[in-house]
C-alpha cells in the first residue's frame, strides 16, 4: 500500500529524514512514534505530497507519487494542528470539502456522533480547540478511503470523544483499511496500534508489534519500553 525507499529530507541544515525505508502492505493500524522532532510529521506529509523529498521514492497504491495528486482521493488525512479558514462556518467548510473531493460522504452520522450540531452555523474562528479537533475528525472520517493518516488525533479531546474516536478507528480497521497514526499518548497507542514504527534521528529505529518491542527492551510496561528504546543503542 505504501512503499518508501531511502527517503531523505532536510530543512536548511537540519536533516529531518535520513534514508527512511518503510513498507506497509497490509491493512491495520500502524503507529508512527518517536521523540519530538524525529520527523514523524515530515514523513506523513511526504506521503501526502505536501513535503517534497530531497531524495528517495514514495509509492502509494503501487505507483510513485512524484508529481501526482489524484492518489490523494484515496487518502483521508487528519492534520496535526486543526487550522481552518476562519471566516467559514463548520457547515460551509464540510460542504466545501465534499464539493472538492466529489465522493460520497457520511458527515451527518459523524456530526451527530460527536455532537457537533450546535456548532454547525458557527464560524470556525469562534470554536474551542477541542471542538475544532472534532470538526477535524469529521472531515477525516467522512469519506470512505482505503488509507487514513491521522496526525495526533487525540489532541484536545475530552474523554467521551476520545472513546468515540477509538471506536471510529476500530470500525475503519475492521473494514480492512490501513491507518497511520502518530501520537504521544502511549496508552492510546497501546490500545489501538497493531504495529509500531519508531523513528529516531530521521531513521526507522524499530518496526514491529508491541509484543516484540517489549521483548526487545525487556520492559513490561509499554510506555517504559518506548522510553527505553531511545536509549537502547547506547546501552547495548
Amino acid at each position, binding site marked *: 500500500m505504501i512503499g518508501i525507499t531511502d527517503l531523505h529530507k532536510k*530543512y536548511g541544515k537540519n536533516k529531518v529524514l535520513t534514508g527512511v525505508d518503510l513498507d506497509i502492505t497490509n491493512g491495520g493500524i500502524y503507529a508512527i512514534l518517536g521523540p519530538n522532532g524525529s520527523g514523524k510529521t515530515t514523513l506523513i*506529509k511526504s506521503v*501526502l*505530497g*505536501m*513535503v*517534497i523529498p530531497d531524495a528517495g521514492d514514495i509509492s502509494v497504491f503501487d505507483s510513485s507519487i512524484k*508529481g501526482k*495528486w*489524484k*492518489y*490523494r*482521493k484515496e*487518502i483521508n*488525512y487528519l*492534520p496535526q494542528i486543526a*487550522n*481552518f*479558514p*476562519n*471566516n*467559514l462556518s463548520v457547515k460551509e467548510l464540510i460542504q*466545501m*470539502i465534499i*464539493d*472538492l*473531493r466529489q465522493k460520497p460522504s457520511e458527515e451527518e452520522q459523524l456530526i451527530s456522533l460527536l455532537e457537533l450540531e450546535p456548532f454547525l452555523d458557527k464560524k470556525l474562528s469562534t470554536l474551542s480547540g477541542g471542538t475544532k479537533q472534532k470538526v477535524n475528525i469529521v472531515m477525516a472520517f467522512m469519506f470512505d478511503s482505503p488509507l487514513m493518516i491521522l496526525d495526533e488525533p487525540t489532541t484536545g479531546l475530552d474523554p467521551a470523544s476520545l472513546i468515540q474516536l477509538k471506536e471510529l478507528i476500530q470500525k475503519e480497521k475492521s473494514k480492512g483499511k490501513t491507518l497511520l497514526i502518530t501520537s504521544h499518548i502511549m496508552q492510546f497507542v497501546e490500545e489501538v496500534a497493531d504495529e509500531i514504527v519508531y523513528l529516531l534521528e530521521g531513521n526507522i529505529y524499530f518496526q514491529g508489534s508491541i509484543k516484540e518491542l517489549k521483548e526487545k527492551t525487556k520492559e513490561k510496561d509499554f510506555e517504559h519500553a518506548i522510553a527505553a528504546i531511545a536509549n537502547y543503542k547506547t546501552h547495548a
Partner: protein
Amino acid sequence: MLKILKYSFYDLMRSRWSYVYFLFYLLLGFVLLFLNNDLSKAVITLMNVIIVLVPLIGTIFGVMYFYNSREFIELLLAQPLKRSSIFLGQFFGVATSLTLSLMLGLGIPFVLYGLFKSDAIWNFSLLLVTGSFLTFIFTGLAFNIALSNENKIKGFGYAVLLWLFLAVIYDGLFLLSLIIFEEYPLDTFSLAAAMANPIDLSRTLILLKLDISALLGYTGAVFKQFFGTNSGLIISFGLLLLWAILPIWSLSYKSRRKDF
C-alpha cells in the same frame, strides 16, 4: 482550479476589504468628477491616482490574503488537487475581485456622469484596462513574495519595497540617468527603461493616448512615434501581458517545489 477560484472569490466577496476598496474608488470617482466638472480632466487626475494606488493595493492585498489563507492552502494541499491549481485559483480569485472593485467603483460614477455620451470613453476604458493589468501584475508579484517568505514581516517588507521601487525609486533613477548622460542620445534607452517597468509603461501608454504628449517635449515626440502607432500599442500591451504572465508562471513553478 475553477473550484478554488470560486471559493476564494466567495471568501473575498464576504470580506470587508473588497467593499472598502470598492467604496474607496466609488468615492474617488464621485469626488474627482465633482471637483473637475469635466470627464477628460477627471480621467487625467484619475490616471495619476491609479498608476500609484492600484499597484500598492494589489501588493498589500495580495500579500495579506496569501498569509491569511495559509490554513486554507494547507487544507487544500491534502485534498486531491493539483498544486498549481490551488495557488492559481487563489491568485485569480484575489486579482479578479480587486479588478471588479476597481471597475465597478470607478465605472459607476463615470457612467452616471454620462460617460457613454462623451469622447472620454476610450481614454477611460484604457485607464481601466491598464488598471486591471496593474492589479494582476502586482498581485502576482505579491503572491510570489509571500510564497517565498514564511516570515510575514519580511514578506510585507519586501512587497512594499518592491512597490516603492517600481513606483517611486525607479523613476528617480531614470531621471538621474537622463541628467547624467545628457550628452548622449537617449531615445532608445528611455524608451526601453519606460517599458521595463509596468508602472511607467502604463503611465506612458495613457499619457500618449490622452494626447498630451506635447508636454513631454522631444522625448515625447519619440515616444509618440513609438507608442502612438498601432504596433507600438500592441508591443506595449504585449509587454504588460508578459509582465502579468511572468509572476503567474513563477508562482506555479515555485508552488511545485514548496514544503508545507
